């Protein structure tokens, strides 16, 4: 197992050195204007993807596209140098974006959005080919989209089909999304054999359940929204959803006790960042390093989008820092 990841982790360690350090993000958030932010950004490792962002008349959509392109390029690169069992395990990490895209697809079809609108919301970076997702977005309903995805959609196509059937029988979009989450984590835990990565996934499930329990407070029959696989049991989840914030796992307390949803979201991000860092440290010869790198890359891109918006709309630096979670 350790030998399988020697080459992969060697490459990832080098890619990790190209991530923007927090100091650079702070400097970018302190830049005097949006053009100045772009100028500073073009001096970093992201420069090769930013060419179109400085053209006449270009704005946030061009920058968003450039950042998506950068993320997609790096994610594909990581996936391209894996083989055998590591390909399955790193594929599980990248399938997280497939899950997001399938949710986008389902929501779009349920609300009757056009295929162009749905297509614009897809995040490139997962294992599913974008043309396949775009073809599925032209379907008339989720069941037809599931049929399109069944051709070359891999294990998540089956998950999407089950979720589409759950939605058809109840007509509740929440059932669709919960079935997708349950299916994804079932597939992830059956694929991943490494203890460190399983621990990280288990923490992800706990955070997802804790956030759901917060939002479901007072809802009837909350048990059907529970995702198994984490350290939280279904009984705990139902108890938390009924309003009790005490939990045996003290690390989840900041998520459950946060005053607002934004604070809970920030606490959950910190918890997952810490879990990914721990996975990288404790599983240095396994897929933990890849999990941490992909999470850091995702956070970097999200932070840059936030700073760009702040600079474009002249938001004060303190406001940007608060959004980034530095305050």
């Amino acid at each position: 197992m350790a030998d399988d990841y020697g080459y992969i982790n060697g490459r990832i360690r080098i890619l990790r050195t190209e991530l923007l350090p927090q100091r650079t993000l702070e400097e970018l958030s302190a830049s005097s204007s949006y053009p100045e932010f772009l100028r500073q950004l073009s001096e970093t490792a992201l420069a090769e993807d930013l060419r179109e962002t400085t053209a006449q008349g270009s704005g946030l959509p061009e920058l968003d596209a450039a950042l998506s392109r950068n993320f997609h390029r790096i994610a594909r690169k990581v996936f391209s140098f894996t083989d055998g069992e590591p390909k399955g395990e790193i594929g599980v990490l990248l399938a997280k974006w497939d899950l997001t895209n399938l949710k986008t697809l389902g929501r779009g079809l349920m609300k009757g959005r056009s295929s162009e609108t749905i297509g614009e919301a897809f995040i490139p970076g997962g294992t599913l080919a974008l043309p396949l997702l775009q073809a599925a977005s032209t379907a008339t309903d989720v069941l037809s989209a599931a049929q399109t995805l069944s051709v070359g959609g891999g294990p998540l196509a089956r998950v999407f089909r089950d979720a589409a059937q759950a939605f058809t029988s109840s007509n509740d979009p929440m059932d669709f999304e919960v079935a997708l989450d349950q299916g994804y984590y079932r597939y992830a835990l059956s694929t991943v054999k490494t203890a460190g990565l399983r621990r990280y996934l288990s923490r992800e499930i706990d955070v997802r359940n804790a956030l759901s329990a917060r939002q479901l407070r007072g809802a009837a029959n909350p048990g059907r929204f529970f995702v198994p696989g984490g350290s939280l049991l279904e009984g705990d989840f139902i108890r938390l959803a009924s309003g009790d914030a005490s939990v045996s796992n003290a690390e989840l307390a900041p998520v459950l006790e946060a005053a607002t949803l934004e604070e809970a979201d920030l606490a959950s991000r910190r918890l997952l960042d810490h879990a990914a860092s721990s996975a990288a440290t404790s599983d240095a010869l396994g897929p933990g390093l890849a999990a941490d790198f992909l999470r850091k890359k995702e956070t970097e891109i999200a932070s840059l989008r936030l700073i760009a918006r702040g600079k474009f709309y002249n938001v004060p630096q303190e406001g940007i820092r608060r959004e980034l979670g530095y305050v």
Partner: protein
Amino acid sequence: MKKLATVLAIFVLASIATAQEATGTAGASSALVDGLKAIGAGLALGLGAIGTGIAQGRIGAAAAGVTAERPEKFGQMLIWFVIPETLVIFGFVGLFLLR
């Protein structure tokens, strides 16, 4: 681990074969001593080489990954790669001391 045990067994048998060869030329009284020396020499070099192989396999894979991303790191990676060779050199020293 099973593969490693097999390779180790082959090395031990090879060392014994060398020892038996040595007994053919040595006198009857010193035959046992010479044989054990030959086994020891074989083990010193053989085990050192096995250890080096295991270490270089892992370092080599990681070094290939690093060099694929940063070709300019080749020299630095080469130094890391050859460090386990010292195990074989120690094995050689052991071998010559026992001969």
